[in-house]
């Protein structure tokens, strides 16, 4: 069986199971609730944004963006921390690892998590943008779409990171994931090391949305994708080399 077919079977099974167990639905609902709370809190700061005419114009794009940047890593930890590591700890991976390549198992599972996250962000963003449009009367279709695309890459990067940390940490994966995320936030305080944190690139999309700087946004997308690739490759190496 080809890698592609194996990935397709595992991916489809994961999606079906997420829908059947209502995991996907619960994920989307909880995300929307968090987003709404974020918007409510964020609305209080509108007065400050008002001072900057340019930002005021993009407020309906910016507020959901800021809220998403904060809650996406947290959400990836809660929903995706055990996608592969739980299969290893319960031993259920042994039933599939002698049928499919370990690469296919990893890719199939991460892809399904990524697709759910991307759809979830799209839904949340669409609702938030509509909500703010009702409030402010401002609506920016292209900018909202760009923000969503950027946040999707940002989410995939964190899914790969969280999966890697979970595979290394195993039993206390949530704690270690929180620790790693806090560590990356902490890095932002340092002049040179801050470039090693995925959080540093989280706001690059704003360079385009506010200032029209396309190159900075594309660079940010590229770096986040590179981070994701590095985290995925490390997970692959780890699962390939380990005894199951």
């Amino acid at each position, binding site marked *: *069986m080809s890698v592609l*077919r*194996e990935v397709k*079977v*595992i991916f489809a*099974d994961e999606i079906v*199971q997420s829908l059947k*167990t209502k995991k996907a639905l619960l994920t989307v609902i909880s995300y929307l609730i968090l987003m709404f709370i974020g918007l409510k809190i964020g609305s209080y700061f509108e007065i400050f944004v008002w001072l900057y005419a340019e930002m005021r114009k993009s407020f309906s794009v910016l507020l959901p963006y800021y809220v998403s940047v904060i809650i996406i890593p947290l959400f990836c930890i809660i929903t995706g921390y055990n996608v592969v590591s739980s299969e290893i700890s*319960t*031993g*259920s991976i*042994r*039933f*599939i*690892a*002698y*049928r*499919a*390549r370990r690469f296919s198992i990893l890719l199939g599972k991460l892809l399904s998590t990524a697709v759910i996250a991307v759809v979830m962000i799209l839904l949340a963003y669409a609702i938030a943008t509509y909500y703010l449009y009702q409030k402010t009367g401002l609506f920016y279709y292209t900018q909202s779409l760009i923000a969503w695309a950027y946040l999707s890459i940002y989410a995939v990067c964190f899914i790969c990171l969280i999966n890697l940390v979970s595979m290394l940490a195993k039993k206390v994966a949530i704690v270690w994931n929180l620790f790693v995320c806090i560590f990356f936030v902490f890095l932002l305080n340092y002049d040179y090391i801050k470039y090693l944190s995925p959080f540093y690139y989280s706001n690059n999309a704003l360079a385009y949305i506010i200032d029209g700087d396309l190159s900075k946004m594309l660079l940010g997308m590229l770096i986040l994708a590179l981070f994701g690739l590095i985290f995925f490759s490390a997970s692959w190496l780890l699962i390939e*080399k380990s*005894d*199951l």
Partner: protein
Amino acid sequence: MMKKKKEERMNKARLALRTENLVKNYGKIVALDGLNMNVPEKSIYGLVGPNGAGKTTTMGILSTLIHPTGGDAFICGTSVRKYPEKTKRMIGILPQNANPYANRTAVDIMIFYSKLAGIENPEKYSHALLDKVGLKQNKYKKTSEMSHGMVKLFEIAQALIGNPKIVMLDEPTSGLDPSVSYNIRKLVKSLKKDTTIIFSSHNLYEVQDICDYIGIIAHGKIIAEGKTKAITRNKSLEKVFMDKVKGESSDR
């Protein structure tokens, strides 16, 4: 000389599985220490040994779940180390300490595994296989709602997906009541005509009862191997096992 070599080649060809100086180290712990094992085609091969002797590690290596430190294993003449993807298609395994998905029904999991094995019409195939092992009435139950015996039967069924050339059963009867154990032994015997079975168990009476060949493993090595009758010589396997294992320990 030529004739002898040809004969050797012929013998090897009739083997479903053989290992050559298989070694596995976990840090300083030596789990397998140059294990040489020969399993003839269409037979039931009983792998017995004390706890920690290396039975599960051997099966793990044969099923590509564990990476060997040295040596190699050959399934129908194909190297497990060089062509793991090819050998995977020839085996089925009931691994030890592996739990199937708890919140899914037996038939649902079987369909998923069948799709992964590239089976055409996986739904029909999965139902037929579950019926064959005796789970007709319980196949719509979630595995978490099944008894220990039913789960074992399910695990045997998944090992049979795709008609593998070798089926490895790692302690399939451990913790089961006598009637379920009996049914599993009956099922294993019936599988012999189509496939080669490696059967690991601590119940030496059942090993002596169903196995055509026996390999006794201790300290990561095969210390005795051959036809069941030749190994036991009208004695109980338990007696032979105790003598061999004791002898091996005192030699060390």
